[in-house]
């Protein structure tokens, strides 16, 4: 492990590996990428996250060379890569469908790129064997892609893309074809491999859990624009918009009117209810705001908690039992429903609350985020 945290994006002297400079991509009238600028640094594991049609795949295809930007420049290692065709770029891609060549063996699939690069034969052999070892499929070198399982195919695709030791590896929804359990295991392996090889990874995904697990930084995209680029914990704890807060994980959003009260803001959200006290994300916040709070940060109790500013009473509408967690849907006066999540440290039979119970919800002044709406 590095002694200092890996945060090149905070170092102004660090040179980015990839730079998007005001890149726009249009398909006819449709704007896939809208004036987008971003820096991605060497050895990063960078995730592009967004719903389908947000432009994340287009960004990746522009990096691979299958699309060219309508305007703006993309730089790799300080050089504009627009005129370089895909087969001359030191960028390799792992396709969502894996795109393994069905007529070639696993070994020949991995060797395919190396054979194109005029590498001596014995070196190719050594490299392919090294790759087979890296992704732990040494036994399957002589099989055809149709003769191995989905998880093994995913490994072959990864090995093939890594074989040429690219400066940048693009992964298009790399784990989407795997079942949940295998996907979670493979996420960690992917991180291991990224660390071992030191390759810069850019992964496209619509699975926020996957992005949060693997990435050093996550870019949340919507309609061809970057909504927020930050580390997973910052994206989760400090989303900069209701879109990001809503896209990542579960969230309660309460609309209200804010007035500044010293270091805090008071948000009036329903008539006859005490204002919510929150911490402003910028000084002098006032006017219409959205208060976003994660369900697990809302405490639920039968007795009214003392010493807290934010306490509201409500009635349990629904209980979602998830095994390790329970989510309570609590109706507040004024027609708003808030989700509160607690860990099920006790057996289900001894659950303290049930439907239609009157309960108290509470949270601290810093638990939620006040966002401009």
């Amino acid at each position, binding site marked *: 492990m590095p002694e200092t945290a890996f945060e090149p994006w905070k170092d102004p002297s660090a040179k980015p590996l990839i730079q998007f400079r005001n890149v726009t991509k249009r398909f006819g009238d449709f704007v896939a990428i809208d004036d987008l600028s971003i820096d991605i640094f060497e050895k990063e594991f960078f995730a592009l996250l967004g719903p389908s049609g947000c432009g994340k795949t287009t960004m990746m295809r522009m990096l*691979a*060379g*299958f699309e060219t930007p309508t305007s703006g420049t993309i730089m790799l290692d300080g050089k504009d890569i627009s005129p370089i*065709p*895909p*087969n*001359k770029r030191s*960028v*390799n*891609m792992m*396709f*969502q*469908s894996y*795109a393994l*060549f*069905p*007529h070639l063996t696993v070994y020949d699939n991995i060797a*395919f*790129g190396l054979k*194109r*690069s005029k590498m001596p034969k014995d070196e190719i052999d050594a490299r392919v064997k090294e790759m087979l070892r890296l992704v732990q499929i040494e036994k399957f070198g002589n099989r055809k892609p149709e003769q191995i399982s989905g998880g093994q195919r995913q490994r072959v695709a990864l090995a*093939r*893309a890594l074989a*040429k030791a690219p400066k940048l590896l693009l992964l298009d929804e790399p784990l989407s074809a795997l079942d949940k359990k295998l996907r979670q295991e493979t996420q960690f392996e992917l991180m291991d491999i990224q660390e071992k090889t030191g390759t810069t990874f850019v992964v496209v995904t619509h699975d926020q859990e996957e992005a949060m697990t693997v990435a050093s930084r996550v870019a949340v995209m919507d309609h061809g624009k970057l909504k927020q680029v930050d580390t997973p914990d910052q994206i989760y704890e400090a989303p900069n918009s209701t879109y990001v807060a809503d896209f990542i994980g579960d969230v309660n959003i309460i609309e209200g009117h804010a007035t500044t009260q010293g270091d805090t803001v008071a948000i009036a959200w329903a008539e006859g209810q005490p204002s919510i006290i929150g911490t402003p994300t910028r000084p002098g916040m006032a006017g219409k705001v959205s208060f976003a709070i994660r369900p697990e940060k809302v405490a639920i109790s039968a007795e009214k908690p003392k010493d807290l500013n934010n306490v509201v009473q409500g009635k349990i509408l629904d209980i979602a039992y998830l095994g390790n967690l329970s989510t309570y849907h609590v109706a507040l006066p004024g027609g708003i429903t808030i989700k509160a999540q607690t860990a099920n440290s006790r057996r289900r039979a001894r659950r303290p609350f049930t439907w239609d119970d009157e309960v108290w919800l509470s949270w601290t002044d810093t638990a939620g985020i006040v966002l401009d709406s």
Partner: protein
Amino acid sequence: MNIRRIALISVPYLWLLALFMVPFLIVFKISLSDIALAIPPYTPTLDISGGWTEVRSFFSQLDFENFEFLATDDLYWKSYLSSLKIAFISTFICLLVGFPIAYGMANAPKEWQPTLMLLVILPFWTSFLIRVYSLIGILSQEGMLNQFLMWIGLIGEPLTILNTNIAVYIGIVYTYCPFMILPIYATLIKLDGSLLEAAEDLGCSRTEAFWRITVPLSKAGIIAGCFLVFIPALGEFVIPSLLGGSDTLMIGKVLYEEFFANRDWPVAGAVAVILLLILIVPIVLYQRNEQKIMEAEK
């Protein structure tokens, strides 16, 4: 239960027996007979009413004379060889013409593909014979092709195309090209576009990706198309007799003449049996290829 299973399995075998084996045995028997001025024009004919001795004398009259005759007269083996050559070259030209058409069709916009497919099979809506006759109109000395070439000034006087082997090639390629295009198109349309992108991503140029990915993956279609052209082209007789010249040797034409012009059924039978033996090789290979495709698709 067992009887039902046997009955079910026996249906295709009975079909083959009645429609393939029995006619073949009749032809084979005729090829072992001698020519005669009678109806039917060969001898012996089997008369079971004569009893056992009759049957024995019937078999004693059968011999391989006609096959020996085919070996002595060089017209026949030259015709077989010439047919093989014409079928082989025509298949190759069909591949050269058909592959780009199939490739273009498979890469055309989705909404065009049904139309293009229709255009390829459209000629089948007209009788094969009429289409070959219309080629005479196009290829003859005063035909449209010669008039067009003279009009654009490429040639000074009309070329002799009709009644030569070139006309036979044109006829076969024109007639059988759809059989080459369709199986190749069927494999190309299934080709996953991301494979070509992956090949490019791994350092192939577009041309290299074509040879390393597209061609190997359409191999099954190419082989199927080649057999579908080669097998009927080998026995073709309408095209060489209508478009070919007197020096065009094709076994189908020889067979037709033996049978209808010379009324020598036994020799015609021998020619047909040998032709079938020659065709069995590509037919078996074709079947194997089809089986491989089926297994690959499982």
